[in-house]
């Protein structure tokens, strides 16, 4: 029955594995940990820390296993196609997650803020203007949004460039130029990390100089949640890039078969596109 021939038409089935249950345990700990933490209970921090450690252990273990299987060549064409479907649908789910937040932004700008300023609402909010940017009728302090054509524009440039460098890395991989592959990957990571630092700097600026905080009404809410979740995705993207960099250095991936690389590249492009939307809808317009 079991055979070692790897030609197309054979099914690949992984053996029983402990990693799923480790992952589920991590989620159990993280779920309780986070819930207790937001309620300022000490046990929460402990659970979070353990959960996080288990999560990291699981990620190393599980992805390590997949990478080893991939290199040992047990995965065939069909598995490769499955991975492509899987990654595409995963990215689609991420798109819908961001859609919820973009939808919220759209709604407050187009509906709720103007509604709050309409004639009927004078009874409740006598002197509210309702123009964007707004932190709502009860917010009395002054705040300044971040101008689009300063650091955000530079960040746009950084991310767009990183989209190009990862494509160069991909070309290099296809031509089996390992040195160039590694070089372009490092460049991509460097750009990504720089982006993150600029973003952190910008947050600091917003908090200390612009009086723009997460709690600055609905402007602060949408601004920080959208850019924050994007920043989180860039961080995850960078970690994934580091992983494939490590694998590239270790000599993994073949010019004709390297879905591990491509999956990360797709993800990176997705993060790029989200940023473009952010730049236009959050910073610029």
């Amino acid at each position, binding site marked *: *029955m*079991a*055979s*070692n021939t790897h030609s197309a038409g*054979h*099914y690949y*089935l*992984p*053996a*029983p*594995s*402990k*990693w*799923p*249950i480790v*992952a*589920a*345990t991590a*989620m*159990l700990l993280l*779920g*309780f940990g*986070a*819930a207790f933490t*937001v*309620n300022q209970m000490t046990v929460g921090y402990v659970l979070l820390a353990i959960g996080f450690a288990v999560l990291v252990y699981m990620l190393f273990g599980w992805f390590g296993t997949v990478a080893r*299987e991939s290199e040992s060549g*047990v995965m*065939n064409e*069909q598995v490769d*196609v*499955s991975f492509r*479907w*899987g990654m595409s*649908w*995963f990215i*689609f*789910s991420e798109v*819908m997650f961001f*859609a*919820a*937040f973009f*939808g*919220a932004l759209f*709604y*407050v700008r187009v509906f*709720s803020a103007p*509604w709050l300023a309409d004639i009927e609402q004078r009874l409740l909010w006598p002197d509210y203007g309702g123009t964007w940017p707004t*932190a*709502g009728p009860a*917010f009395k302090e002054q705040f300044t949004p971040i101008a689009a054509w300063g650091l955000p524009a530079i960040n746009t440039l950084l991310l767009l460039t990183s989209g190009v460098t990862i494509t160069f890395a991909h070309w290099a991989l296809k031509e089996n130029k390992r040195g160039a592959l590694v070089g372009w990957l490092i460049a991509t990571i460097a750009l990504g990390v720089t982006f993150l630092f600029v973003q952190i700097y910008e947050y600091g600026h917003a908090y200390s100089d612009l009086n723009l*905080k997460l*709690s600055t*009404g*609905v*402007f*602060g*809410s949408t601004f*920080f*949640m959208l850019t924050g979740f994007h920043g989180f995705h860039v961080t995850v993207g960078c970690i994934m890039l580091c992983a494939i960099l490590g694998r590239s250095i270790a000599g993994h991936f073949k010019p004709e078969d390297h879905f591990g690389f491509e999956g990360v590249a797709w993800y990176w492009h997705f993060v790029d596109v989200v940023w473009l939307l952010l730049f236009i809808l959050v910073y610029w317009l």
Partner: protein
Amino acid sequence: MSAVLDTHGQHDEHAHHPSGIMRWVTTTNHKDIGTMYLWFSFTMFIVGGIMALVIRTELFAPGMQIVDPDRFNAMTTYHGLIMVFGAIMPAFVGFANWLIPMQIGAPDMAFPRMNNLSFWLLPPAALLLIAAQFVPGGGAGVGWTMYAPLTVQAPMSMDLTIFAVHILGMSSIMGSINIITTIFNMRAPGMGMMRIPLFCWTWVITAFLLIAVMPVLAGAVTMTLTDRHFGTAFFNAAGGGDPVLYQHIFWFFGHPEVYIIAIPAFGVISQIIPAFSRKPLFGYTSMVYATASIAVLSFLVWAHHMYTVGMPVEAQLYFMYATVLIAVPTGVKVFNWVATIWRGSLTFETPMLFALGFLFLFTMGGFTGLVLSIVPIDVQLHDTYYVVAHFHYVMVAGALFSAFGGIYFWLPKWTGRMYNETLGKWHFWLSFIFFNVTFFVQHFLGLAGMPRRIPDYSLQFAEFNVISSIGAWGFGLAQILFLYIVVSTIRSGKPAEQRQWEGADSLEWTHLPSPPPYHSFETPPVLR
């Protein structure tokens, strides 16, 4: 020809599979995982059902008797959440796991390890939901729809609930990616997309819906979390937000969600009815297109749950027109089932009884849905027991009956043993009668103006509530019979044949013995 390839293929095939509890914990087998999903689902059904019985017992008579109002609201909330996310959805994922590989001629799911993770994320989520009842402040009495800003004042159990929803979302998304990839990529040669059984088609469409809307729900509860703890103002007018924004996001998820519950049920029914009519499905192609249209339309109608929030009249009109349109593709499905039965050669074993019960009662629920979709009527009926009656007709008599029918239909295949037909019929008739006793009278309560989510009510509603509560206990007790039937089938049922139902013609019946081998198709089946 082709063969199954194990990572430990060098060794003797199954020598390395752990046994005992570790078999279930580490398994990558779609049948094991399907079984776990189904048992988990039944367990949650009992938990949610007991909560329903608390609700119905408190409502047996006017006045406060057994729980205080906060606890009552928590019971309503977690009954809804647990039934939807813990009982019905996992039940159909269980069916998907068992059946899809067998029906398309594959050895297993596309991502067997992730499949295991999808399942094992459910118990942590369930633990969070159950623990929420016991933390200080008690369960969050906010309704399964978790409307802001009531959620902002809720006790810490709300946070447990939010993270449970996140985990459930991950599980559903991974499960869906797996199912969709399996169907697109693992079909046996010759099994074209328009040849797969209708159950598989309904799951392709459901999986798509899930991947599209579960992240939106995650977004909604994340905003609730930050509004609660981190000072954001998404749902707070003082900060420029809007409580109604929550409702828009929730129902953008919520309406497709109700079809996520209904569509796999349609799939099961579409397998059962042809089998017992001994006649192919009347219109396979139109069924596929109707299901897809329902899915597309379901994204465009969400605000019919919000007719009374005070949106502009133009918006109300649009949502009303869009909503009534769903009756057209759903009608196509109903007519198709009737046309399949027409001039068949009918027998009435338990699965067929449940399918007919489904057809009759689901259509009734559909019609009450249509009544609700008419704005001026809904203004009267919104948030009354009429709505409760509507959705229990489509979800209990719809989805749950379909799941029962499916269990009786495939139990002989899965276990290799036949259930007791007489007891099965008893289970059906008890369920059918008590279901109607419980929920039919709720239409009258709603029409007369009894609001939902109340632990106590005025005297004019007393009579029908008594009837409804008696029905609920009857319905609940009837389910003990179901448990007995399933357990005794597994233990000591008579051996079943490969093709237990002569009219069943999908691959699991025609190509695989009962029970099927561990890896369904180690070599792709030969299809004509």
